Structure formats: C-alpha cells, structure tokens
C-alpha cells in the first residue's frame, strides 16, 4: 500500500506525478454530481482547507477571495499563492482525478516549503456551473479566473460553456464591486464569445490597457497554467477578456 502510493510521487521533487492522475479530457458539466455539496457557504469547513491559516487567525474572519474555475492541474493557484500570500484562494474542478492531483500537489508543496508557504490555496471538486452560490456569499470574491475553459464548439453545446450571460449573473453576485474576472483561451471563437458576453452584461466593464499593464496577474494568465504553457509551447495565439464588476442598480 505504502510503496504503491509512493510510486505516484516523483522521487526527485516529491510532487505527485501527473500521469497517475490522467482523466477524461472533458467532463460533461450537465451530468449530476457524486460529490458532497455544501448546503450553504456557511457550511464549508475552511479548517480542512486552510488548517494553518485558520489556526493562526482563530477568529476565522478571513474568507476566500480568489476562485479559479476549472483550475485543471492547479498551476495558476500555485503562482498566485506566493504573489498574494495573505489571500485565501480556491480552485474548483469537476474531474475527480484532477482534483485529487491538485490536492496532493498542494500538500506536497506545503510539506517541502521551508517558509510555510502554500497554506492559502486549496481545491474542491464541484460543478462550478451549478454550485457557486453554495460556496461563496454575495460579494465575497475579488477575483475569478476562467483560464482555457473547454470550448464546446457545437452550437447545441454552447449552454455548457462556463461563460454565458446567465452564468455571469451568478459571477456578478459572488464578485464584489471592483472585483475582476479574468478569461483567456486559445480558441478564437470562444474568445469572441466570452468577450461578447461580458461586454453586453450590464454589471461588467472592460479594463483599460493601462490597468492591464499595471496588473501583475495578467501575465500569469498564459504562463502559469498547464494549458497556457502547452499553448505557448506550440506558439498558439491567445484571446483575453478581462472585466471589472461594477456597482449596479437596476
């Protein structure tokens, strides 16, 4: 048993090996879940996710502020973790094997870090298209990431896309005014789609070039995640849409 678990970790880095966590390329977000769903955000047990942070800050006043939706293998979380060491962040991933991988990866990083890093990131297995309101309260988040989401090319599958006018209503609900939504893809058509959805939504406005230049997170979008690196290796083009949640009264 022990030797078996060990072999799924790399000898040199102590990190889990990705090939043991390979899973189906795409999950169908419409099919129902087999994972526990918190009844409400107040039911999420943060001490399991961030034991060190909760221990240090026993008021438990800190809340998750960043969410990486469809986080895949977790590269972005790991980069953001050290860039914003005082911010709690969570990845949401539908595939169970991939979620397991990210979990192991974070635990391994925590163990190998001498400065107590990576205590501020975690991951949950869930269908973000259905259960975002079960995890976050109104206005709780300051950043949401949608990096290289599944394209779902066919017209009849467009409703499976993680960015749509109706889902943006929910994202606008969990984002505070001033919060930022980051999207990037290497599929031009999807890039256009995400941008169009955000542009026509009354609760989002585009960031200016100046603001983009000043935001340290922007350059991570195509370099930090596994998917981003793959696209970069192949010299592929990427399409970004980065918008701010604005105050709104209908």
């Amino acid at each position, binding site marked *: 048993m022990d030797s078996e678990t060990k072999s799924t970790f790399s000898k040199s880095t102590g990190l889990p090996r990705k090939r043991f966590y390979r899973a189906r390329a795409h999950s169908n977000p419409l099919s129902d879940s087999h994972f526990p769903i918190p*009844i409400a955000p107040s039911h999420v047990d943060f001490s399991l996710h961030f034991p060190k942070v909760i221990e240090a800050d026993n008021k438990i006043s800190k809340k998750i502020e960043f969410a990486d939706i469809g986080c895949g293998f977790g590269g972005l979380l790991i980069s953001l973790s050290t860039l914003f060491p005082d911010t709690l962040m969570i990845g949401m991933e539908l595939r169970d094997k991939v979620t397991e991988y990210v979990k192991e990866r974070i635990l391994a990083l925590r163990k190998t870090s001498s400065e107590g890093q990576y205590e501020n990131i975690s991951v949950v297995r869930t269908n973000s298209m259905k259960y975002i309101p079960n995890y976050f309260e*109104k206005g709780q988040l300051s950043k949401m990431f949608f990096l290289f989401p599944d394209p779902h090319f066919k017209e009849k599958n467009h409703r499976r896309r993680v960015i749509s006018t109706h889902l943006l209503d929910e994202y606008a609900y969990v984002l505070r005014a001033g919060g930022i939504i980051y999207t990037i893809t290497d599929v031009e058509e999807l890039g256009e789609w995400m941008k169009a959805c955000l542009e026509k939504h009354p609760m989002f406005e585009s960031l200016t070039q100046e603001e983009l230049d000043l935001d340290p997170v922007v350059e991570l979008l195509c370099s930090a995640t596994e998917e981003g690196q793959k696209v970069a290796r192949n010299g592929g083009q990427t399409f970004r849409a980065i918008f701010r949640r604005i105050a709104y009264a209908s």
Partner: protein
Amino acid sequence: MVYALVVLILTTVLYGGAMAQSGCSDALTSLFPCLGYLTGGSSSPTSNCCDQFLTVVHSSPECLCMVVNSKENSFSGFSFNRTLALNLPTVCNVQTPSPSHCKESNIEEGENQNKLEVAPALISVHPSQKSVAVTVGSDLRVFDLIEKCPVTLVDESDVPSRKESIRAIRYSASGKLFVSAGDDKLVKIWSAESWRCLITVCSEKRVSAVAISSDDLHACYADKFGVVWVVELDGINEGEVVASKKGASLLSHYCSIITSLEYSPDGRYILSADRDFKIRVTVFPKKPLEGAHEIQSFCLGHTEFITCIAFISTPELTQGYLMSGSGDSTVRLWDITSGSLLDTCEVSTMAGHLVSNETEPPTQVTVTDICGIPNSSFAAVAIQSFQGILLLSCDLSAHTLSITKVIKIPGESFIPTSISVSTSTKLLWMVSGASNLPGSNHPGFSRVRVMSCTDTESFPILEDEQIPGGTKLLEQLQGKVAIEESVMSAAAEAVRAAMSSLLMKKQYSEEKREFRKRTRNDKKTT
C-alpha cells in the same frame, strides 16, 4: 406464492410509469424467487433468490433504491415486509451500496421522459372568488361562482392545444388574468372575465411554473431546463387576440428543474425555486426583456428538492416573509432580502402518525403545496400521503414558524394535491387527483373540497352542499360526483411516485458509477 406473484405484477403495473422509465420493472420482477422470504413465509431466502438478488445488485443497483425509497411495506392489502427486504443483503451475504447512497442522477434525461406522465390535479381560485379553475391532465375546467355556471373557454389561437398535462395555473393578483401552461410547451394567458385566450406563448421546452406580475404587465414561465422566460402583456386587451408570442430569457438556474415561481408582494423581486435545493431572489428589472441580472440573494438550507414557495402576508407587511416547502420534510421561513434562514418547521413527525395505511411513520415526507392565509400569520400546508392540512403559524417578530393545528379530512381518502385560497372569502380550495394513472384508461380523476379559514380557532371542512356553487360546481370541476375511494388513494400514490421520480436525484452505486465510467468511449486511460 401464486398470490404473491399476482400482487407483484399488479404492483409493477401500478408503478409502471415510474419504473419502466428507469428500466427497473424487469429487474424487480426477476426477484420473484425471493417473495417467499419477503412476505415472511419462509425464514430464509432460497439460493435461487440470492442469485437473482446478486444479479440485480450488479446490473441495476439503482432499482434497489426504489425499494429503499418507496417507504411502502404494503400495497393493496398485500404486506410486503420492508425490514426483511432491507435484510436481504445480509442474509444473502451480498455487498450492496448503503441505502443512504440512494441519491444522485443524470439530468440530461430531462426531456426524454415518458409521454404519459402522471400529473397531479391542480386548483386555483380567483382572488375575490369570482371563479375557480381545476386542471386534470390536459383538461382545464372553470366554474363561474358569480353566475353559478360552468365556463366555456374560448381559444381562437391558431396554435392547436395538445393533449399533454397542464403543470401550472394561476390567476394574476388583480384577478383580471389567468395563465395555464405545461407539457404541451404552450403558455396561455386568458382573460379571467371573458375567458378568451388572449396570448399563446410557444416555449421551446415543457413549462414547469408560471407567474404574473402584480401590475399585469409581465408573465414569467420556467422551463424544464431551468430557464425563466418573460413576455410583455401590455397592449393586450379584450378586443384583440395575439396569436403567438415568444418569450425573452430572463434568468437561468443551470439545468435544474424550476418547481415554483413567485413575485414578491411588492413586485420588486422574482423568486425561483429548484430541484437543487435552491431559491434564487432576483431583482425584477425595469426592462425585463434585457434579462434580470441582479441577484438579491439565494435562500439556501433545504436538503432536498423544493416543491413550493409562498409569502406570508399581513397588512402591516408589504415586503412579506417567504415560506418554502420541500422533499426534506420541512417548511422553512426566510428573509428574502438577505437570504437568511429564519426558522425551520419539521412536518414529518406531526403528519407522520396520521398518514393513512402506514404501520410505521415515514421518515421523510414531501410538502406538496403551501398557501398563506391572506391578512393573517397562518399558512395552510399540504403534505404527500397526508389526508388533511397542516396549519402553521408564523410569529414575525420572533421569526418562528410552528405547527398550530392538524386538520384531518374525515371520510374518504382525500390527500390534497394542490390548494389555493381566496383573498376575499378566506376559503381554502383543495383538489386531490391525478391524470394518466398507469393501468387505467381514464384520463384522470379529481375531487374538490373546501375548508373555511375565517375563524382562526376552528377550520371546518365544508360539506359538498355548503361549497359555493354546490354540486353544480363539483360536477363541472370533478367530472362526476362520486369517485371510489380506491381510485383516490391510487391517484395519490401515483402522484407521489411520479413526483419522486421527477425530482429526487437518481441513485447510482459506486460500482454502477465505475461501470458507467469504464464503458465511456471518450475516456483516455493508460
């Protein structure tokens, strides 16, 4: 043995709708060698029984959940020992998923359901009791309480009405309009005065809930894929009939069946409740055709599908507090502005010992309908399998909700499937019935009863002759006056089975899930 087999087949026929759908009827029928043991006839199961049981566990474990969920140990006088059934895994030494895993499902099946699904009979009464409407299946029956005569509906729209069940009806708050919608994917807006169909809206999917804004300017309807649509009603008048209109999408619950839609009493919000335990409170915008983007709150706390929502309304409160009923045996009270759960009222214990034909009280019951009694802090609640009404009282300063009275309806098996109250008379109108009963060639049955809520001490059930409109009304709304008791209880049972198959998440065991995954062809394994 022969007797038992007959009963099993009968049970299969009666449950045909729900079971055939999930392919369980064959699986459960194959368990017939176990009947000797299951009926208590023999002390241990035969090896043949255990072999069959093992096959079912492997091939269709979700069917065992039907036994676990059915809560029945008797059917048509034949006692089927549920305890013994639950012991089968142990005595046969077969590993089964724990009964607590009996949950989960696949939603994309949403649309391809059995054509002739059982639909509960519905009732709606005009706010000032000018008329009352009942639906059974595709039939819409209206009785005029002023003229004391049946109403003839006039539908000149060129969209032919199909013979599919109506799933939602209601009057607008002003009493001027009436809306009906359902499985035929049509939403019909009627004048509640001339009873002409003023607008027919074609929906892309089947419709599960409807609402009309208090100013009569907009109608909203929810489809089975969780999208709420809106149509403008201004400009409609008695003179012209708008043949067909299309809705604009207002908001969406991602792929979840919406079970109830309601405007807040002040008209500021539109509320939508779904199968995924969630109530969404959305600001109803000034330009609804552009979508309702501003979510005020989510009311989260139910642990099963939500079946109904209704406001408590007292003259002092314009905002109102929301009540919701669910498959989790509770009615909950909410502050919709913040989404906070104020109180939870357990109804299973109270209704439990009164449920008819049960030897042991059910562990979970489903709330089927709620009505706030106008200008009071009372609410009437209908519960699946319960022959009566529970009266809840809401203390709005202490934020509590509690059962104050259990009203049993004496005599026949009358289990309300839908209730509605008139604002002016405070009469609670109740209907019990269903359409498309499996194994019956009757289109459907319904029985109407009325309870008076004028006096908050006693809540008398009116005799048929005392009901406004009397037997003439009953003839119109029920079709025929005398309905055998056995039919009524079969109808109630069929409605229960249909509702749980629609709203309860289906269950897949660990093995079954693994099997489903293994057999996928898009999976990349090393």
